[in-house]
């Protein structure tokens, strides 16, 4: 599903450059649950952003579902964000001005899902995550764990084939973290959603099939 060939990424610093990723080769198959690990500054978030089409690699080749990403137009990428890719962030990044319901609804609006179907799909997800009672609350009225639940609900409501999670439990305590990770596992197993997460915790990594260790911009 995902194929990276000789991917590198560097930023200009002064007259030289600072390499963040160096010659990364990586293949992730559909249905996998992969954890990317490594110390801070090792480049794992950058790798995730490249995988999620949020950043462009400085060199190398990236095939998403067999299609070369660097040849895609801005529009095509946005289409992928609408349909194929879901994101979960450490800081949740819910839209503060929208209620839980409206936050979850937003990706469907961009996908032009008709109103009745939208309602039923949002209701399904709310039901599944047990947050029906919270649907009219605003993000700042929720606890961190609940916010992340909403974040995940928002990520899966458009039925993506892959979810990229950037330290999804980084701001949560361990009980909440376990709930979130079990949810990911469940999504991976029953809904067959490919999951790629960045994490610091061995425990969280243990929920996945495979761990990719990254250090100083290289896979070990």
């Amino acid at each position, binding site marked *: 599903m995902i194929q990276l060939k000789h991917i590198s990424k560097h930023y200009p610093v002064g007259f030289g450059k600072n390499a963040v990723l160096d010659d990364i080769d990586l293949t992730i198959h559909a249905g996998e649950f992969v954890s990317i690990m490594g110390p801070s500054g090792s480049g794992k978030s950058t790798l995730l*952003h490249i995988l999620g089409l949020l950043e462009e690699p400085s060199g190398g080749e990236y095939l998403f579902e067999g299609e070369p990403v660097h040849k895609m137009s801005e529009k095509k990428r946005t289409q992928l964000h609408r349909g194929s890719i879901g994101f979960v962030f450490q800081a949740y990044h819910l*839209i503060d001005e929208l209620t839980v319901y409206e936050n979850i609804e937003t*990706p469907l609006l961009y996908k032009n899902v008709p109103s009745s179907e939208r309602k039923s799909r949002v209701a399904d997800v709310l039901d599944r995550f047990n947050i029906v009672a919270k649907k009219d609350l605003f993000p700042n009225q929720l606890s961190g764990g609940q916010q992340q639940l909403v974040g995940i609900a928002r990520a899966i409501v458009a039925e993506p084939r892959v979810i990229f999670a950037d330290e999804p439990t980084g701001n949560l305590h361990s009980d909440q973290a376990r709930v979130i990770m079990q949810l990911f596992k469940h999504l991976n197993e029953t809904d067959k959603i490919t999951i790629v997460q960045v994490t610091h915790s061995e425990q969280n990594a243990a929920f996945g099939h495979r761990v990719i260790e990254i250090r100083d911009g290289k896979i070990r």
Partner: protein
Amino acid sequence: MFRNYLKIAWRNLWKSRLLTAVNILGLAVAFTASILLVLTAAREFSFDQFHDHKQQLQQLYISVHHVQGTEERSNLPMPLTPALKQEFPEVKAASRFMDASGMVRYRDKMYGSDVMGVDPDFLRMFSFPLLSGEKQQPLRSLSNVVITERMARKIFGSAEPVGQSLEMYLEGRWKTFIVSAVAEDVPDNSSLEFDMLCRFEHVPAYADQKDAWNSSTHEVFVQLSDQATAAAFERRAKTFVNKYFAEGIRNLQRDGAVPGKDGALIGLHLMPLTDIHFNSISSSGGAISRFYPYMLLLIGIFILFIACVNFMNLTIAGAFSRSREIGMRKILGAFRGQVIMQLWGEAVLVCGLALLAGMAMAYFLLPGYNALFSNRLSLNLLRQPWLLPGLFLVFVLVTLVAGGYPALMIARLNTIKVLKGSLLTGRSNRVRNVLIVTQFVISSLLICCTLIAWQQLNYLRKKPLGYSKEQVISIPVPYNVDAELALTRMRNQLSGHAGILAVTGTDINMGRGRDGSSATSIVSFDYKGREVRSHWLRVDYDYVGAMGLQLVAGRDFSRAYGTDSSALLINEKMAAQLGGMEAALGALLPVEDSAHPQQVIGIVKDFNFKSLKEEIGPLTLNINKEWPLQYIFVKVAAGNLPGYMNLVKQQWQALYPGSSTDPSFLDENTDRQYRREQRFSGIFISAAVLAIIISCMGLFAISVLIMTRRTREVGVRKVLGASVAGIVTLLSKDFVKLVLLSVMIASPVAWYIMEQWLQHYAYRIPVNIGVFLLAGAIALLVAVITVSIQSVRAALMNPVKSIRTE
């Protein structure tokens, strides 16, 4: 999707209520001001546009190249129009236009009424629709009059006016006329005004002058045929002029006058009717410089721009808090276009609210605005075809400028950086600073212009005119009163009273009286083989004393000499024209004809008998009863001026019960000459105040945003021992620099503009540097106060609190 946007927009606006309020209020006020200014300008531009044949309608004027300079005037001789119609087939219709009478009588009741003498073509040429009566040829008979609806109601009440007979006061006699038709009221934006129309044959002195080519008394309007052009007419007019003005041309040639560009000494020209409102040659025209309405439009645009800048700056500054939402939206699959549309939509929402509020305010303020600046605006002006689409266009433009730029900027931000929270704000600061500087450049410009205009106006009012204006009461003599008799009677009545120093009469008021009228009378005659031109003023005994004029040579008119009715007083300018003081004193001038020359008995010091826009010209005073008096002047002692005014009114009422007159002091009259300047400077002052207020509202909101962002820095500095004063300086410094820079940019521009404006005045103030310093000080002071409110608050905050907030 749309509902989602609307919700977000509404919640965002509500969350930042202060900024929203500043935005909406600022824009609403700007819209109000702009709407009022545009209406004011639109009224000026709408003058005489309502005539169906406006393309073909032209006013005739004549240019004469004298030795002393070129004279252009719209007053023409009476035989010209008939000759014109005979010799120019392209003149489809032509009409003379002149005051016939000011007084009508119906069943022994008198009414002041503006009766104009016109030719029968008049109602065919101009679109003054007839409502009832004879609609084809209402002025066929010499005894017919056409009356406007308003005047008809005033005179006849609810009775049917058509067929009624009424009397008109013509050259000292009452004459009977029959109302043949009722016309719609003359629109308020018409240069030609009348209450009634009668045939031109009834105008004063018609019998004497109907064949006189050397006396110019009235205006002439023509309607050209559809194919004819003004240029072709003017070319053909050359032969016509050579034929009928032969004597005048000969005299000019003899004096050595230099022909104009077209090679002619006397030329007949046309100007489109729609231009006369902006033309000072036409007597009916408004003499309004096109500069003024364009200036008003420009000021409207300025104010709107300033409010837009506030909007932009606040949106960009607020973008910081919005950027996370926008970044997330992009990740969730929003195209950049969609994001821009969303943000622009929010701008449209805010601007729309502001526009509605602005239109409502303009609607409610219109009566007050009209009263304040003596305008006659109505919302009917909005019916002009260009105005509403124009307004809509401006609105879209405002939303594009105010909302579009920030939207584009926010949408372009790098998603990842936004979400990481490492957003660079350096570049937007530069844009912000440029915008703030622009705002204050405009504000300081308006302040400078206002100050200079105000100084000039003050100077015009205060400048000594060479005669006493504070203590002289001017009484306009009504049409139906014998002025000579009235003067004698007033002299007798008032002579016993203490405080009445002199009573005299004249035919031309000083300045503009309550009736708003002013007149100019010029004579020209040949003296020692050269043409001499002079203003001509009928006065009476004691005029020199009453007006406080200074005799520099000779003597005043005196009852002791029986021959003084043919004697003349002249001013120094006139004396210079006659070859100096010695040569002038005692000179015999053939003013009317060479058989009865009139002798110069005295020379008075030059005084400003016209407005200060003009240089003093040659002036000749006479007491010849052939020139009827129009005004009685009463010189009173200093002190109880209102008391004397009452006394004069009482005495007049005692002499002429039931006859109303409206006396005024001459200084009121001279002030009234600068009414337009006062009106415009009033608008200017309001605009300048508005501009600075709106700019400061923006500055205030920006400083609120910046202070919130720098709260932690201030806290840390305070913990490290910074004083409150130090922190206030630190926070205000940047803004002060911007405002200073603005003043420096604005000053030379203002200097240039106002120097141009001052050229309109023969007497003017020099522009001095103090004005710019003062304007700078005002702008700076207001800005510093605005910013300080926030920085002092930030500086006084408990540092522990502010550090803990993060």
